[in-house]
């Protein structure tokens, strides 16, 4: 029954479903920014909003624990249901870390196969998704190491001061929120593109922390890095991505937008 449904595709692998100067005005001596693009950004809104960014992990399946127990007992339908919930997250994770679709597919297949094989070792004191991501990260890092991309990642970034501080250059507020400025599919593509502006180690850290929403500590543990290294890379990654996204969403950036927004 299970196999028949799988073969017909009914059971689902739906699966679809910078030396820093003391202020920016001094920086403009070196990197001129037109006054017209410097806009007030809504201080009242900053004050009104909570200071920290809200983070939601992928939704739990209501009966996740039961599904995991059933899958451990050999119910492949239950395992497929779990995969349907998380496959696209794992594929995006693989794509962010490795930077190409071929490796991302390998990461997806290898990670899910390893998870299926090692399901008996899974302990219910952690989330199934966390466990799955750990497996996928190890597979993805293996691919980076094969290509010698993990150790060669450098902390160096352009426009750093002598003390290693990243200097923001784009001082331009955004117009509409990105979610309103373009179609969801276009936004997904923009985010996938800009994240590749980071070196492999930085984009792996950023992906785990800000895309997959793990804590700094969990991210450091998964990657075998110290917390200060994770924090430093995360800060630079966020600032770098802010600049990349300003090219799309800054008030003066209409020409960079996909056709639907022009």
């Amino acid at each position, binding site marked *: 029954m299970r196999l028949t449904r799988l073969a017909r595709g009914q059971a689902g692998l739906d699966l679809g479903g910078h030396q820093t100067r003391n202020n920016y005005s001094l920086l403009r001596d070196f990197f001129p920014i037109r006054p017209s693009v410097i806009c007030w950004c809504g201080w009242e809104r900053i004050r009104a909003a909570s200071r920290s960014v809200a983070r939601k992990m992928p939704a739990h399946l209501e009966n996740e624990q039961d599904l995991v127990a059933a899958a451990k007992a050999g119910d492949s339908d239950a395992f497929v249901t779990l995969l349907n919930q998380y496959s*696209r997250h794992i594929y995006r994770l693989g794509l962010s870390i490795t930077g190409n679709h071929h490796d991302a597919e390998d990461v997806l297949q290898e990670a899910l196969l390893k998870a299926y094989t090692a399901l008996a070792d899974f302990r219910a004191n952690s989330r199934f998704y966390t466990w799955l991501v750990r497996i996928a990260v190890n597979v993805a890092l293996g691919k980076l190491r094969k290509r010698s991309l993990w150790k060669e990642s450098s902390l160096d970034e352009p426009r750093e001061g002598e003390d290693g501080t990243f200097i923001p250059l784009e001082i331009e*507020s955004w117009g509409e929120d990105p979610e309103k400025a373009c179609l969801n599919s276009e936004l997904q593509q923009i985010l996938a593109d800009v994240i590749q502006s980071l070196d492999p180690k930085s984009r792996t850290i950023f992906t785990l922390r800000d895309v997959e929403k793990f804590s700094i500590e969990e991210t450091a543990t998964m990657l075998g890095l110290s917390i200060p290294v994770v924090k430093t890379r995360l800060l630079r990654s966020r600032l770098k991505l802010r600049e990349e996204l300003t090219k799309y969403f800054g008030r003066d950036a209409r020409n960079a937008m996909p056709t639907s927004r022009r």
Partner: protein
Amino acid sequence: MRCRQVVDKISEYLDGELDPELVRELECHLEHCEDCRVVVDTTRKTVEVFCDTEPAPLPNDVRERLNQMFTQKFCKEEPS
């Protein structure tokens, strides 16, 4: 607090992990520094847009190959 220190502390500020005294200093700086307000606001939006955007569905061919892989796997394990 100066602009460079604001930049250094943006992550901790947005993650809610900054010492309350430093939060007060940072926000006091933001009240008077337009450039830093822009940088903090757009960095917040950057983190939020990555946090909030759902992943795209799997490409059809990727989904199909994954389907085939597990179908074969389950076939092999099915008792004859």
